[in-house]
């Protein structure tokens, strides 16, 4: 046995090892030194003739592997992997559909499309989470309508507006404060708060106050009024935010009622009956109430045509006023600006043209057109 030969065998055995896996255990793993010379020649012959075949076979196999997962379509599908969605825009041949069994046709179509979608999904990056392989999905690309309109920012209250105007900033207060009398830290607000004036069992009567006045009741009343005022302000804020008419309070108790207030009170009292004041008698010298609100009044069906015409014309005028009116100065300005822009663009074009020519003369270096401070990001 010549060493030369052995070397050849080595080579081919290696080839065999690479290309014919199923037969590998037969030929490759034979220890070379034990191969008899006759066997060896046979082996070399076999190998020589089959290498090309094997190569071809392997290639075919590879193609077949891909074939099982590749689908050919005229138009590519549109994918939205975020929604696990695919859209096939290809025209479906009606003839194919009629010839085949309907269900089979649909299934094969679905199979192809699903295969393409799966191929697309498998391209996404994967991760292992608790023994399961998960694929990360991108954001969904299909625009879908919202359920509700986007949240609006809360309209500022009257106080917030004022605070902004004055530059008053919110200060965070601590929740606990030191109570001198109890000698401990207590809440600023709420149950068991510090300096709780509702829990006092004794109140000093001020010198100026009426000695018969109940000071406890006074405090309770003041608190109630504060709460009511706050509630009223809240409602006013809401009304302002919603652009509804700010609710009136009717009549607030004041120390001295004016004449207007009194007459208003009388008219309110009069109309506050089940029949809205229709059957209320009048006092002998009572004047009819003023500013009680408008009543709807209807014109007679056939009457003054002149006024009717005028009304219609007014209405038309009002409708016409909703259209944008032509503002001459604005229009002229716009036109002028447009012309300027065009001029500038033309000028710029000319300049660019010159530069281009210059550049080409210099030897095709287009970037060297004297424009040093260009936008470097956009290339």
């Amino acid at each position, binding site marked *: 046995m010549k060493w030369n030969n052995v070397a050849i065998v080595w080579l081919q055995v290696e080839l065999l090892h690479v290309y014919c896996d199923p037969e590998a255990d037969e030929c490759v793993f034979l220890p070379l030194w034990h191969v008899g010379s006759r066997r060896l020649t046979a082996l070399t012959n076999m190998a020589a003739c089959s290498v090309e075949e094997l190569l071809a076979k392997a290639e075919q196999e590879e193609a077949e*592997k891909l074939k099982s*997962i590749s689908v050919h379509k005229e138009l590519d599908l549109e994918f939205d992997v975020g929604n696990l969605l695919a859209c096939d825009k290809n025209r479906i041949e*009606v003839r194919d559909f009629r010839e085949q069994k309907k269900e089979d046709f649909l*299934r094969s179509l679905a199979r192809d499309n*699903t295969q393409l979608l799966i191929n697309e999904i498998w391209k996404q990056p994967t991760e292992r989470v608790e023994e399961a392989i998960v694929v990360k*999905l991108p954001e969904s690309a299909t625009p879908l*309508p919202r359920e509700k309109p986007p*949240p609006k920012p809360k309209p500022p209250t009257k106080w917030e507006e004022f605070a902004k105007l004055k530059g008053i900033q919110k200060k965070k207060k601590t929740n606990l404060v030191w109570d001198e009398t109890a000698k401990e830290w207590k809440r600023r607000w709420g149950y068991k708060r510090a300096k709780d004036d509702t829990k006092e069992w004794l109140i000093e009567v001020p010198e100026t106050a009426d000695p018969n006045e109940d000071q406890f009741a006074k405090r309770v009343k003041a608190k109630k009024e504060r709460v009511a005022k706050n509630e009223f302000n809240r409602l006013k804020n809401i009304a302002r935010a919603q652009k509804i008419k700010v609710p009136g309070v009717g009549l607030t108790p004041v120390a001295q009622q004016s004449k207007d207030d009194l007459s208003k009170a009388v008219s309110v009292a009069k109309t506050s009956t089940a029949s809205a004041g229709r059957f209320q008698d009048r006092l002998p010298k009572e004047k009819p109430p003023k500013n009680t609100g408008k009543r709807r009044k209807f014109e007679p069906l056939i009457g003054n045509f002149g006024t009717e015409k005028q009304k219609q014309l007014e209405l038309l005028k009002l409708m016409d006023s909703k259209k944008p009116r032509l503002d001459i100065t604005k229009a002229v300005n716009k036109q002028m600006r447009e012309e300027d822009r065009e001029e500038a663009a033309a000028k710029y074009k000319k300049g660019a043209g010159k530069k281009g020519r210059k550049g080409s003369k210099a030897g095709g270096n287009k970037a060297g057109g004297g424009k040093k401070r260009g936008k470097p990001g956009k290339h």
Partner: protein
Amino acid sequence: MTQLDGIVKPKTKRSKRFLDNRAPKLIEDVKTAMIMKGGNTSQTITQALKDIVTVCSVFNLYLLFRKNITRPFEDSTSLEFFSKKTDCSLFLFGSHNKKRPNNVIFGRMFDFHVLDMIELGIEKFVSLSDIKASKCPEGTKPMLVFAGEAFDTDNEHKRLKSLLIDFFRGPTVSAVRLAGLEHVLHFTALEGKIYMRSYRSLLKKSGCRTPRIELEEIGPSFDLVLRRTHLASDDLYKLAHRQPKALKAKKKKNISHNVFGTKFGRVHMQKQDLSKLQTRKMKGLRKRKGGVVAEDQDGQAPKVAKVES
């Protein structure tokens, strides 16, 4: 309810939380659907609605299976009322009468008003239980496939597609388990009909990383025809699609990409002090005592350098 949202002051913390949950959100929850039966329904419709419920991976479903004698195309107020009550924005309404036998209406709401409504007639229906095959677990996020050029060209079909995606897509998720991709809903628009088929996908070995797909029909399957439609006007449709400003990605300054995806950054440099630059020392250039050397200090504009990162 929306009109009065600001005015109704919740009296308890719990009701406050409830109202907050109902209020419009920046990032919305998964859309919920209500499934309704009309005044008269056939066996087919009842079964179809039930099957859709099982197939549908919408988690929050409100089943209004009592008779709701309402005709959505004539008067949608009761639908809107129910939508407000249940906070659902999708609905499926099934009915059956002589003029329109086996009728289902897919629809969706925007701000508790009907946005789109599409009426479909069921021509053929095979129930989930009619096909003997092992089914997908409930709540599987389905893969949706739409085939047929009608879905791309015809306006009504386009809306129908969008509606069906909305209805069947299930929750939005950031990741899915690969082995869990089992369920395929295939919609085919062909010859004026819409074929809805539901398959279970079997992942077979292909020799590559990507598996080969085989499909097995599990039902329900529908052959549908398009009937009446109520589509939102373009303005309203656009309004419904409007994204809040806060969700839009802010443009990053000084970063740009070219066609090949290379990232460019723009860096603004401070003015360099060239007088302190260390250069080769030469006797001739040495500073002399007292001699005023005019240094070049012409005002250089901040140089804009291109930095590839």
